[in-house]
């Protein structure tokens, strides 16, 4: 794939745009105004503000971009997306960056809190049951990465949730799981990771 106007080989920004649905090509027009960074509720915990990250993307700093914890701290609140004067689908771009980081094998070292692992535990349960399973995902994730907080959860909040009848002990399965599995299997063949 080459750019229609310059016939140059695709750079980082081209790859990100190609992997993001919607009007992602607006990313080319980022003004560096910083509205996204100013609107971001988890900005203070990020390695790079969204604005900085977009400047890095534009400069082709692939390694640093994909190693940044920024997309993993995105809470999907969409404030940046609503306010962006160039209508860049920022949240969707963050999802693309997460997928690219996983594909590049960076994610295992990215985040001290293992954000990607949480997503993977979650989807693993969905793929095998067709439904999400709150207690399963929380306990599996915490036992693996935050054993102390797992104990805290199980004895504190977890107990209260169980007492209120708000937690299931076993996952619910959908009836036609084979159908869902064949759909997902085919989708994986088509889609790769990104």
């Amino acid at each position: 794939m080459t750019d229609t106007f310059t016939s140059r080989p695709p750079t980082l920004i081209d790859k990100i745009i190609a992997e993001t649905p919607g009007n992602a090509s607006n990313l080319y027009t980022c003004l560096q105004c910083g509205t996204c960074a100013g609107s971001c509720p988890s900005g203070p915990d990020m390695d790079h503000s969204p604005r900085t990250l977009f400047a890095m993307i534009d400069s082709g700093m692939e390694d640093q971009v994909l190693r940044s914890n920024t997309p993993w701290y995105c809470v999907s609140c969409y404030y940046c997306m609503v306010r962006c004067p160039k209508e860049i689908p920022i949240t969707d771009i963050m999802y693309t960056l997460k997928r690219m980081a996983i594909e590049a094998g960076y994610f295992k070292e990215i985040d001290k809190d293992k954000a990607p692992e949480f997503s993977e535990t979650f989807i693993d349960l969905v793929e095998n049951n067709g439904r999400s399973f709150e207690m399963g995902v929380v306990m599996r994730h915490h036992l693996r990465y935050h054993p102390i907080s797992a104990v805290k959860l199980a004895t504190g909040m977890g107990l209260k949730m169980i007492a209120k009848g708000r937690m299931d002990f076993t996952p619910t399965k959908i009836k036609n799981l084979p159908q869902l599995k064949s759909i997902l299997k085919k989708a994986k063949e088509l889609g790769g990771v990104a």
Partner: protein
Amino acid sequence: MKYGYYPGCSMEKNARAYHTSTLAVTKPLGIDLVEIDDWNCCGATEYIAINKIPAYALVSRNLALAADQNGSTNLVAPCSACYLNLKKVDHYLHEDPGLKEKVDIALDAGGLKYVPGSINVQHLLETLYIDIGLEAIKDKVKKPLYSLRVAPYYGCLVPRPGNMDSFDDPEHPTSMDKILEVLGATVIDYPLKAQCCGGHMTQISEETALELIRRLLKNAEDNGADMIATLCPMCQLNLDAYQDAVNTHFGTKFKMPIVYFTQLMGLAFDVPINELGFGKEIVSAKPALKKITDEAPKPKRTRERGKKAGLPMPIMAEEG
């Protein structure tokens, strides 16, 4: 009127109160919710972060089932994340032919087919506010929630991203305010009503989430709320179940009940209370509900504008 119903995984257990109260209040309003048979998880905000085509295919299976089963083109989702995922997938399949082509092949492997645009995805709030309307809701009110000071909390995924047809303002939504108002409640207007509850950050980086939750609770409390009304299982969980953790972490003393707006509708409609799921919340709503009075509160006197009121300000010339 018949509507397809996509409850979503949370409604089965964690947000059971939302599920039962939704069914209890939609019935008298003439909304016939028909649950999509054998629906699957929408992937929340997790699947799309790992695997693009499977994430779209996962949601598309639900859209295909809804189009097949119900004979109703409307699909109602009460959970914010489910609503956004269903709506977004339908929208992007329509916009992106390359994506649609791949999703079609994946669906075909399961013997399904979906034509983008054939299902109209609605959030429950939208169904109530737009399709049913405030007048019809007001007609059903038997026990107004007089004197109860409720802060409506919208979260993120219903008002935003706003790049698809949106039924409310992305930054200053008011639809739930208006519903609570016709229920007789005193609606609290507060600046953070559409800010983030932290989403899944409670699991990934608890401190990030606790700070977001603290801000919301403080802002609602500072503005005099007796309780917060939500429209999303995740928002309810974060604000309710993590309130203790917020208090421990910040040394605060919040005791803010977090209920679903449908529970309040049920109370006002005089639905038997055991159908509304009260008591499932961790911070009890009971003390706040006792504040409901039989008579409407007297409207507070607004400060008269005059020479003595406040700082000297320039006065605008009156129009006309």
